[in-house]
């Protein structure tokens, strides 16, 4: 294992400390626990708060999407482990501006468990919460079990839209409805080429032969739907995009937003090669890309691979994507 780290156990606290030192005008730790970060001006009076959270190792997910027009706070777990319910409650209290708090995070057992416990404790504190789960990974469950799907990079669209809705003054029910609407119209699928090594154990997150790829693999190495010899970028894009179009029921004349996301060790150049083919495929079907994002939005430390997300757009969704936002890792002017 070759990593630029100090004590493996200190990895999370040290990179969080670095983020706080680098972005003091955007983020703050409201209490003693550095695993609870909120936007610098939190709580914003009268505004619905949005908090997210989950395991570390996915930057810019989740901490990177705390800021104006995005989430208000994040509860940070160890690498690939859920934050505690107490940390989620602390985050909730720190962002509550009196209009309630939306919990928006990926559908993973440990996270659901701890966020659900926090909903009860928040209620005891007199804070109303609602929950919307990111569940965009189409490879993790078939369409008829879409509510059991895992959440991956596509949750970015929900952060962006729900964050914009909260910023313009929507109620908690309205912000939750926006997030739910986005999740329902988002589909993501990924391909993995090589695993990440967990800092604390030194072990790979999954095993894959040198010449192999796995389509549909999860961001913690959860099994995908096809393992085989590595294909060309164009072939990979075709596999992924075809599946996404089918899942969303996208047809000629539709508009979409596209997110081509790197998983950590795949260069931007390769992501643009994937975007090129994605654009060709969609154009060929008469589907317009009205908004695109290419880069690292949800990673798995140094895992090699990429994912493609599609969001079926309407005027409302597009307007929310285009609204201004500012966080340490994402800006929309």
């Amino acid at each position, binding site marked *: 294992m070759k990593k630029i780290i100090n004590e493996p156990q200190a990895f999370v606290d040290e990179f969080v400390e670095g983020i706080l030192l680098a972005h003091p005008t955007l983020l703050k730790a409201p209490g003693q626990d550095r695993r609870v970060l909120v936007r610098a001006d939190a709580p914003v009076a009268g505004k619905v708060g949005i908090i997210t959270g989950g395991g570390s190792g996915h930057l810019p997910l989740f901490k990177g999407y705390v800021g104006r027009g995005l989430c208000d706070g994040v509860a940070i777990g160890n690498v690939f482990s859920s934050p*505690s*319910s*107490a940390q989620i*409650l602390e985050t909730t209290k720190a962002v509550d501006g009196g209009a309630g708090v939306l919990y928006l995070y990926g559908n993973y*057992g440990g996270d659901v*468990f*701890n966020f*659900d*416990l*926090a909903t*009860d*404790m928040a*209620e*005891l*504190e007199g804070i109303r919460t609602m929950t919307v789960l990111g569940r965009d990974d189409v490879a993790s469950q078939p369409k008829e079990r879409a509510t059991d799907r895992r959440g991956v990079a596509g949750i970015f669209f929900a952060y962006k839209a729900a964050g914009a809705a909260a910023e313009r003054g929507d109620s908690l029910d309205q912000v939750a409805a926006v997030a739910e609407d986005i999740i329902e119209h988002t589909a993501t699928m990924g391909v993995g080429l090589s695993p990440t090594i967990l800092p604390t154990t030194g072990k790979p997150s999954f095993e894959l032969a040198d010449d192999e790829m796995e389509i549909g693999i999860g961001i913690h190495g959860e099994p995908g739907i096809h393992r085989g010899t590595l294909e060309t970028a164009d072939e990979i894009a075709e596999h992924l995009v075809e599946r996404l179009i089918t899942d969303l029921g996208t047809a000629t004349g539709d508009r979409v937003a596209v997110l081509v996301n790197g998983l950590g060790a795949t260069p931007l150049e390769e992501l643009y090669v994937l975007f090129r083919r994605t654009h060709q495929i969609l154009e060929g079907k008469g589907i317009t890309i009205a908004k695109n994002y290419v880069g690292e939005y949800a990673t798995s430390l140094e895992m090699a691979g990429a994912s493609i997300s599609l969001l079926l757009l309407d005027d409302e969704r597009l307007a929310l994507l285009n609204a201004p936002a500012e966080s340490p890792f994402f800006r929309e002017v």
Partner: protein
Amino acid sequence: MNGNELSQAIQKCLVVFTEHADELGDLDQALGDGDLGITVSLGAQAAIDALQLLPAESKPTEVVLACAKAFANANPSTMAALVAGALLAGSRVWADTETITPDLVNTFAMAASESISQRGKSQVGDKTILDAMFPAAEALRDIPSGPERLDAAIEAAERGVITSKELQSRRGRASWLQDRSIGLQDPGATAFLRFLQSWKAANSPARTAVS
């Protein structure tokens, strides 16, 4: 029983219950992360302190919510959060009621058990607190009134504690032990049993008459 009587009964019960903190901590040391003793002792004291600040005319629901909040915040742990959520679920059943009847105790017990089951994604047989809670809640439903109700609940909870000793832990940190958890007594189920026994010891007529 009105809100003030409930508050007094809980406080007396928790004083006795705290005497079991070391036993519960030891059981949890063997099967979990060992913090149950602290959760119980700090949580019980925090609940007592919170109840002493409540006005005497508080409703039963307000009494329970004060306990839940104090317990959850005293030593934030998964167990504390599960118990607080259970109390919250139970209190929803009581709503604005002024007087607790045996029927309302039954629905509270069932709602609290179901909350832990749902939040913890656990059922009877997973070797958790539910192995004592559900049987006790069911035993209560079989007896309409009288002191036999508590005796029956204690007996059912005790059976659950004993039966679950031979089971393998399927939830929480204890599940990491896999088959090594077999034969060990579940600290959560034991805690619930000790709570019921403490209630009886602290609030049975004989004890009240003496004290």
